[in-house]
Structure formats: C-alpha cells, structure tokens
C-alpha cells in the first residue's frame, strides 16, 4: 500500500521529508532547495577510509515543480585542494533515482560531495559535507 502511494506521489509532489524514503530508514541526507529536494544515502552507510562506496540519490520536485536531473557528481577535499583518484559512474535506475558507483575517499578529513543539478546547459551546484575518520 505504502509503495503504491509513493509511486503515485513521486516525483512531483513528494513532501521534502519524504524525499528519498525509498533509500532507507537511516543515514539519508537531504538538501532542500525552494523547488526541489535532493536526498542521498551512501552504501555502505559508513564512509570507510580507502573503501569503495556508492551513493544512491533521489531528486524530488517541490511545490508542483518537476524534479530536475542530476547532471554531474564529484567529491574533493577543500582544505587539501584535491579530489578523488577515481571517477564516479553516474547511472539512472528504472525508478528514476540515480546511483554513483566507484567512489573512494582515500584520505581522512573533510570531504565535499558536489551535485550538479538541472539540465546539461544550466546547472545548480549542491554541496554536501562529509567527514572521514
């Protein structure tokens, strides 16, 4: 029943807090914008130094707006001025969500994940901060 309701609501009208409910109960991060919400969850849920992980990402429109596309995704350490040594591969799932495979945080400290959201010609950058021990 719940799944059916989600399908009906998604993607245009899901409330911000529900965005990414399909990603799981815990560890879902959300970035709210006036017209859409980006929700993502790492797999495995904990960032382990040097281990390969993937992100699952959902974009939901708000206030009647359509959900934008995820155009690009990357990560870097702002204090050190370097990024990852691996290129994430972005792909789209059948349910409209996204996944980014093959990411590695190879150094402990503060990482920023950047999501370029919109259309290939016009994107807005969202930034999520993560700490790696």
């Amino acid at each position, binding site marked *: 029943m719940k799944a059916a309701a989600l399908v009906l609501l998604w993607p245009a009208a899901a409330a911000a807090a529900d965005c990414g409910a399909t990603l799981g109960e815990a560890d879902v991060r959300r970035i709210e914008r006036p017209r859409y919400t980006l929700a993502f969850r790492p797999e495995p849920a904990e960032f382990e*130094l*040097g281990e*390969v992980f993937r992100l699952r990402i959902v974009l939901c429109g708000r206030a009647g707006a359509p959900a934008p596309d995820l155009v690009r995704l990357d990560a870097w350490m702002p204090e*050190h*001025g*370097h990024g990852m*040594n*691996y*290129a*994430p*591969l972005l792909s789209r799932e059948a349910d409209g969500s996204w996944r980014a*495979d*093959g*990411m*590695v945080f*190879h*150094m*402990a*400290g503060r990482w920023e994940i950047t999501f370029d959201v919109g259309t290939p010609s016009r994107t807005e950058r969202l930034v999520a901060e993560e700490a790696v*021990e």
Partner: protein
Amino acid sequence: MSIARRRLAAALGALVLLLLPGPATADLSPEERTRILRHGPWPPPWRPDGGNRLSGDPAAAALGRALFFEPRLSADGAVSCATCHRPELAWTDGRTRSVGLAPMDRNAPSLLDARGRRWLGWDGASDSLWAASLRPILEPGEMGGTPGRVAALLREDEHLSALHRALPARAAPEDETGLAVDAAKALAAFQETLVSRRTRFDRLRDGLAAGRPDAAAGYPADALRGLRLFVGRGNCSLCHAGAAFSHGEFEDVGVGYFLERGRVDPGRIGGIDRLRASPFTRLGRWNDGGDARPTRHLVARHRDFGLFRVPSLRGVAATAPYMHDGRIPTLEAVVRHYSEIDEERLHADGSRLVRPLRLSAGEQADLVAFLRTLTPE
C-alpha cells in the same frame, strides 16, 4: 585490613605506578588517542584475493616459494626474485636502485605485507599481487623471461612440475600464457605468507585500546614524543594512515623525479598507462574474480605526474635506503627531508599536504625513535 595497612598498600601501589618503566600515557589527549588507535590492530584480518584462485592455498605457496628462488625464470639463468628481494634484508636488496639484467630506475620495496595492497609498484602499475609477480619475470631489463620459458620449467623440471601438479586447480587452457599466469599466482600465494611481525608500537597501541594505565610500559619516552609529532603537527598520518601506515594511494613529498641524463620517472601517470596497457589486470581474462571496481573507476589526471605510492612504514628501519629511487640513505635523513622540504620541488598543483616542518634536532631524533618502534626487534 587495618586502616594503616590499607594506607601502606595504597602508597605501595602508587609507588609501583611511579616505578613502572616507560612514559605515562595519561597526558595524551582524547584526539591523540583516537589517532593512535587508527594505526592498528595488527596484523589485519586477511581475506583471500578473489582475483587469484590459488590465493591462500598451501600447495600453491609451496610452488611459489620454489619459483621465488628460481634463477632459470630469467633470460640469463642468473636472476631470481630473491636477487632483489632477499629474505635476510627484509625482502629488499639493500641497494639504492636494483640491478637485474640491466640497472633499474627504482628501489626494491620489501615484500612484507604486500598482500594487503591495492596498487603495487611505486607507480601502482599492477592491481594485484599476482600481476606484480608476473611483471618482473617478463620485464626485459629485470629478468627478461618469457611465458614460454616459465611454461617449460613447469612442464619439464621434475621438482617444479610435481609441485605444479599438486595445485588444487590448474590453468585452463594450459597454454604458455596460462602456465605463466599460474606461476605468478603461485608466487603471489607464497608472498601472502610474508607478514610483518607485531612491534613495540602495537603493544602500546593495543594497551591504549584496552585502556590499560601501563600501556606505555617498555615504550621509549622519545618514541612516544615522536609518535605525538607523527599524528599531530607532523601530519604524517594523513598519508601514512591506518594499520599499514599508508593510505595506499600516490602523493608528492618533493623527493624529485629526475633521473640521470635528463630522463624523468613519471611516477603514477606512467603507472596508470602501464596498467591500462597490460592484459594482466583485474579487468582482463586472466583474472579469476574479486573486486575490480578500483581498476574500473581509476582516472588519470595531470597532477598524477611524479607521484609515488605512499610506502608502508612497518619494518621501515630494516629497509634502507629510502624513497622510490633510494636516494635518501637513512631514517635520520628522511626526517630531515620532511623538516626542510623544498617547496619549490612540490609540483602537484593545488594540494598542500607537506610543508617544511622546521623540527628541532631533538624533535627529529624523537620522530626517528618512533619510526624505529614500527620495526620488530
């Protein structure tokens, strides 16, 4: 017990604590403790390499051991793996740069703990221990062998072919390349048994983890000061991270990449090229399985030029000389290098991970004393 006796017992207890040999760990901050704990436990749990179906197999390790000391793998019949990886020299050759059939550009690393590495070679040109074991056999200036030569040994030499027949699963097809790959996988199974022993540092670290007040008993006071520098102001743990004291990736610490006569060692950028040109990777048909994602997602960037793999520091006191080209003779000189690092030499654009630390003579000695506790006595 009377009150007087109890007082006496307490006083004696305090005296015992005072007399315990070794520095106190009480003044380590919680942050320092956390950072120190991340350098263990040792040894780490081991999982067989899914890319090598002979991984962890004792029969394969027996064949691998025989092949490791076998000079007939080389073109002139005189160079074996043990020429450059000598057991009595912590599996190095003690030279600045190795000499096989021809002089090489790099220093021979120890093979201890090689089983835990994602990238092998100073430039990470191999993505598995078995591929890193095939490369030296086939490299013209190193052993100059061929798959045919390896195959002939496994087929015709009585002792080696008996060891080969004892393998649980042999190559299919048993053509020359298949047999050479099997030999490399057996060499890998042998090297998987080379694990460095626990050290004084590990005893300190595990004592801290267990919350023992006498964790530092027997640990030298100068080494403890050096450890605090290592995880603190020295910033060494950033790259020399985790239980293996390496994050396993590639960095620039201003050692330089010029060889004689204007030649350069391109480091990681060349390693990525060599990896991609090789049929013997985790993406190739000779690999048996396992996790190929790092190889698949690897990117080459301009900044990879002149980067070298962060070496493990376990056992480091036994593996002089140091750095990818062996240009630094002693640990004292390595620490001096970090103290006085020439920022002009740092070429990787953007990142600033090392700066001249300007350590006092005492601090340099402390850091060296710490590094020595990473080597079993």
